[in-house]
């Protein structure tokens, strides 16, 4: 096994390239890899194709900061704090390309890649305009039963970014709460970068085989980043910081407000 400890700066500059397909961990404002997101913004990555299911501030910030070319998603929202205004604005002007999905079709596109397949079949989707307008979905017939199904095109991430609870220096990772699709995203990607609350001893991994949720073969870089999900929650460690999300939700009502937020909370700050 290879040691894989990096700083946030090193990992983002070494393993994320302009134009990459980037799958982003977490759901809503829970266990989102926000420190990695902010570092991507600081490093000014461009033309990313970001992929996730139900996303919030992470997607909105990357979109607002101009890092994004294309979005594969089922929902982008700030939950009770309202709309993801950067997403809305850039979608309305056509500055970002939308690859709209249902939760399970975007999950299935990741799952196809995780299984090493170019597509997977799916029930449902038929009859929805999401299906009708999508370039990632088409209709097929089961070769055995003849029944109509949706086919979902695989999305293979160049990089997956997730925040987890613990890892050893070799990249044996423990998620100690809701798994979301983080594990599928790590399986599917060429490279996976994980920030963790704690670095634990390798012996601890060996002594508790059953607690490892993602083994080292799926992990490219491990970053010790306590509070790396902030202002999202990290199960067992901290809840989401509603005040910060509210501040963000207020700020993004205008492009100027968002830029001011970025300057203050991201660009002139280090994680």
């Amino acid at each position, binding site marked *: 096994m290879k040691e894989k400890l990096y700083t946030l700066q090193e990992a983002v500059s070494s393993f994320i390239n302009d134009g990459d397909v980037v799958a982003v961990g977490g*759901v*809503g*404002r*829970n266990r989102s890899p926000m420190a990695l997101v902010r570092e991507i913004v600081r490093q000014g990555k461009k033309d990313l194709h970001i992929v996730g*299911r*139900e996303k919030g501030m992470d997607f909105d910030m990357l979109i607002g900061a101009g890092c994004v070319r294309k979005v594969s*998603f*089922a*929902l*982008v*929202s700030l*939950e*009770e704090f309202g*709309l*993801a205004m950067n*997403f*809305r604005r850039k*979608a*309305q002007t*056509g500055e970002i390309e939308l690859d*709209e*999905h*249902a*939760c*399970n*079709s975007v*999950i*299935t596109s990741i*799952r196809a890649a995780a299984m090493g397949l170019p597509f997977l079949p*799916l*029930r*449902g*989707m*038929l*009859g*929805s*305009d*999401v*299906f009708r*307008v999508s370039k990632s979905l088409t209709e097929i017939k089961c070769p055995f039963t003849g*029944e*109509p199904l949706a086919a979902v095109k695989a999305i293979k991430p160049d990089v997956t970014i997730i925040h987890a609870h613990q890892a050893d220096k070799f990249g044996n990772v423990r998620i100690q*709460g*809701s*798994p*979301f*699709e983080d*594990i*599928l995203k790590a399986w599917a990607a060429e490279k996976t970068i994980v920030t963790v609350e704690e670095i634990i001893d390798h012996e601890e991994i060996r002594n508790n085989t059953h607690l490892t949720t993602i083994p080292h073969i799926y992990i490219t870089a491990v970053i010790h980043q306590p509070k790396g999900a902030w202002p999202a*929650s*990290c*199960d*067992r460690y901290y*809840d*989401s910081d*509603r005040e910060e999300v509210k501040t963000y939700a207020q700020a993004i009502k205008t492009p100027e407000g968002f830029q001011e937020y970025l300057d203050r909370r991201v660009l002139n700050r280090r994680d």
Partner: protein
Amino acid sequence: MADYTVAELMAVCLAREIKDRDRVLQGLYSPLPIMACLLAKNFHAPNMVHINTADVIDPEPTEVPFSTAGPALQERAVAYLPLWQTFDLAQQGKLDLIFLGAAQVDKYGNTNLSVIGPYEKPKVRLPGGAASAHLCAIMDAVIWIPRHNARALVEKVDFITGQGYLTGGKAREGAGIPKGGPRKVVTNLCIMDFEPETKAMRLVSIHPGVALEEVKENTGFELIVPDKVETTEPPNKEELEFMRQIDPKGVRELEFH
């Protein structure tokens, strides 16, 4: 004046859609559905299976959190269940009910959470339909609308995110999605279902203190009004006490501010 809020009334209406042993998925930003699940489990449906977006099954939260995928919703759960596995369960036909929010719902129960205006050049880009385009095709859904008005209840949605009965009648079968469909629509004014033949929306009951005219005026299409329209049964004392105890911060009121 009633001793309950419209949010509390709606939560109870949603809860009543859950039968004992039903497997129910509660999604992200779903303050009323989470109340409904906890109410059902605590009162009339103790064996319902509550699956949530925090990726657990049958949690026993001490207090409802603001983010309905938040860590508090893992509390005392019997197992983690990743959402993709819940979707597998739905594809097997083993998930019984979802609750569905929408910016627009039309006469045939189609829902829109994608765009107002044309898809490629939208007037308003909405957040997206989350699970709906997948699940609405294969199972039962109950739709909740906190603001019943003619912009939300429309003749025809601008974009079908979640499949209702499409153009009504047998259109669902024709589209290859024979199973399920929207069962009820619960709003701040009333409860509606779908007439079995035409699949057009039909009034079931009106909430206490609401006039039939108010419902009609706020509905953007001609609602079927049967001869007999009930008054919605309000929450009882135990249900109210339970909600106030498990939700002291008022998460259930989030959509009504």
